[in-house]
């Protein structure tokens, strides 16, 4: 994440950067569309040996449909929609039903993984920069569930529940009740790079402190950049677990689970060497900590904040820790994915650099 932000190796960027300010083109035309193909969906794990579904060059943009199949049963996926008065004629609904049927009995999770995407030139030790160019809901509804034994109060929840919400996609809100609308802020719960081969098949439920995964971080919305440390040649990028909205904590065990179409731009960063995921929004740097124990997750998040402030702002340990205490907000990412998460929100506005690095995203 240090400046210069751009390595100059990317023609696309060179074009963007040619004006007085970096500006997005009027509409980004993705280089690829990755369709949902149940035959090629990895069933709930990350592995270095899963063949890539797409090969792209650094700097290219991919539009991907990601599905949330929570609430659909293997034997009668249509029932979910008829029970909730959702038209079976919607193209997105037809797609969900066909994918659910194709995946039935294959042990895939309710949020099948899209990928892996092979990014040419990516080598272990590099960083994969993933710019979240756009995310839109793919369906006009979503579901939130909770189950005894799961979530943030596993001992208190008396029985399973499933709450289906209809969306107003014009207003980008979910109808939670007659009187409560929830603003939608679509993001992907899962983004990851492949682990090394010797780690075998890593289940996709928990997040990992190095490869990312099911981070369930609500700040990874349109306009955010995720940085992941490449472990294998080509990086092997996965995306899944589309959410329409979520609070910090994801305390019931789930967000508004809802299919998204996400547009991502990928860069191989040879100049950046990370141990774990970081993110950047138009307004904040984000450092993360993961652990089964929430106290330890905070500890990791603090250490990673200090590392980030050293790398990006050249601060020493004491100033970095001091700033973390007086000017950085630590939020609970999620407490429900076995491995819990805490993230630090570091305001860019604190830094009055002579030449602040321009950020790619413009509203």
């Amino acid at each position, binding site marked *: 994440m240090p400046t210069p932000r751009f390595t100059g190796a990317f023609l696309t960027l060179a074009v963007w950067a040619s004006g007085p300010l970096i500006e997005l083109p009027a509409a980004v035309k993705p280089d690829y569309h990755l369709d949902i193909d149940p035959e090629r969906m990895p069933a709930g794990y990350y592995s270095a040996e899963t063949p890539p579904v797409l090969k792209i060059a650094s700097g290219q943009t991919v539009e991907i449909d990601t599905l949330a199949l929570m609430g659909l049963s293997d034997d009668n996926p249509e029932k979910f929609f008829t029970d909730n008065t959702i038209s079976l004629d919607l193209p997105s609904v037809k797609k969900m039903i066909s994918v659910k049927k194709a995946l039935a009995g294959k042990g895939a999770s309710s949020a099948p993984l899209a990928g892996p995407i092979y990014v040419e030139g990516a080598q272990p030790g590099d960083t994969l920069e993933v710019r979240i160019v756009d995310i839109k809901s793919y369906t006009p509804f979503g579901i*939130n569930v*909770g189950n005894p034994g799961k*979530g*943030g*109060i596993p001992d*208190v*929840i*008396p029985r399973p*529940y499933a*709450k289906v919400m209809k969306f107003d996609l014009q207003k980008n809100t*979910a109808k*939670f*009740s007659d*009187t*409560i609308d*929830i603003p939608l802020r679509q993001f992907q719960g899962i983004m990851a790079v492949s682990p090394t081969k010797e780690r075998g098949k890593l289940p996709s439920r928990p997040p990992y402190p190095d490869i990312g995964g099911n981070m369930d971080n609500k700040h990874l919305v349109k306009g955010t950049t995720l940085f992941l440390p490449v472990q294998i040649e080509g990086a092997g990028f996965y995306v899944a677990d589309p959410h329409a*909205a*979520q*609070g*910090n*904590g*994801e*305390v*019931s*065990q*789930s*967000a*508004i689970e809802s299919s998204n179409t996400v547009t991502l731009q990928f860069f191989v960063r040879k100049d950046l060497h990370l141990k774990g995921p970081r993110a950047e929004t138009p307004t904040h740097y984000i450092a993360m900590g993961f652990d089964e*124990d*929430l*106290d330890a997750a*905070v*500890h990791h998040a*603090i*250490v990673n904040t200090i590392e980030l402030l050293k790398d990006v702002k050249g*601060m020493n*340990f*004491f*100033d970095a*820790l*001091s*700033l*973390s*205490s*007086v*000017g*950085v*907000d*630590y*939020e*609970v990412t999620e*407490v429900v994915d076995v491995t819990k998460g*805490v993230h*630090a929100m570091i305001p860019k*506005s*604190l*830094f*009055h*650099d*002579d030449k602040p690095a321009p950020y790619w995203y413009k509203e």
Partner: protein
Amino acid sequence: MHRHRFLLPVRMAALYSAAVFPLLAAPIKPDFFLGARPANMIWGYFWAETPPVLTVQSGKIVEVDTTDLTGIADEDPEAFFKEHSLPLELPAIQDLIAIKRQVKPTGIRGHMMTGPIFVEGAQPGDTLEVRVLDVKTRVPYAMNRMRPGGGGIPDLVPRPYLKFVPIDLEHNVALFAEKVRIPLRPFQGVMAVAPTADRGKLPSGPPYADIGGNFDNKDLGKGATVYFPVQVPGALFYIGDPHAVQGDGEVDGGAAETSNTVIVQLIVRKDLHLTAVRAETPTHYMVMGIDVELSTAMHKAIANSVDFLKETQGLDFFNALSLCSLGVDFRVTEVVDVSKGIHSMIPKSYFTSDKSVEPYWYHADATYETAR
């Protein structure tokens, strides 16, 4: 908590309209002033039997000075200020020097607090509503301190470290480093009511779910309301631990510790019966969870948020939990005060269709005179 305390944006907008606002803009003068003088300080603990330094009626507004002594040496209190070229004649600095010289240790380590304030009519079972009308930092500096064995990474701090941070009071900003400036958001780390007499002297270091205390909750600044379940007659309100600014987590063990002047309105609520402290801001309801284990603090914060939504919004358990999951943010309050804290921020904007509620008291443009 009470369905008539919601912010209604439409109504607020009307109140703020240009035609109406001048009526609201007359400065408000507090009814009482409580200085940070040695006689008004209580060092280290909350106790039912501490004699009150001020008695007020419900609804009265009190201007209170609060202090932090970090960096000031016992043997020569003036040296610190001379070293940093701070004017000794500044009243706030005179207060600090006098307190350092005259207030004797009580044997219980904790905060140098102002109070307690006896609120007439408050009885056990009532609620003390504390409106934080204003908070202003009154010295041009803050201190941030860390030490091995303290804070959120106690194993990694190699040596004690004390950072002096100049504050530009005119621009309301902490000059953290040459190119790092932090806008001030002053608040009090400690606000509490006295515990019952049988609990003796409770040290002010950790926060307590029922009486409050060292919450170190950065959202309890100007515009916040804190609701304390009254434990003893008169409530006995304590206030201290002034912070100029802090992040959620307070991860090195301290905030930007400074001296503040706080204006609070103290209201006895006979209609409200709580078992734990709650709070609200102009935009959010705030529910807290406190425990020595952060995971348990999180569990409590979730369970308490669900209870809050059931009680105040009439949601059933499942809808309350669901709303918490998809629309409520859980933040790390602090991880450094022995008992750790998580608080949830529940947006009031979700509930604005309820027309039965009254607007929240806060006016961003209200001004205050001093009563000193």
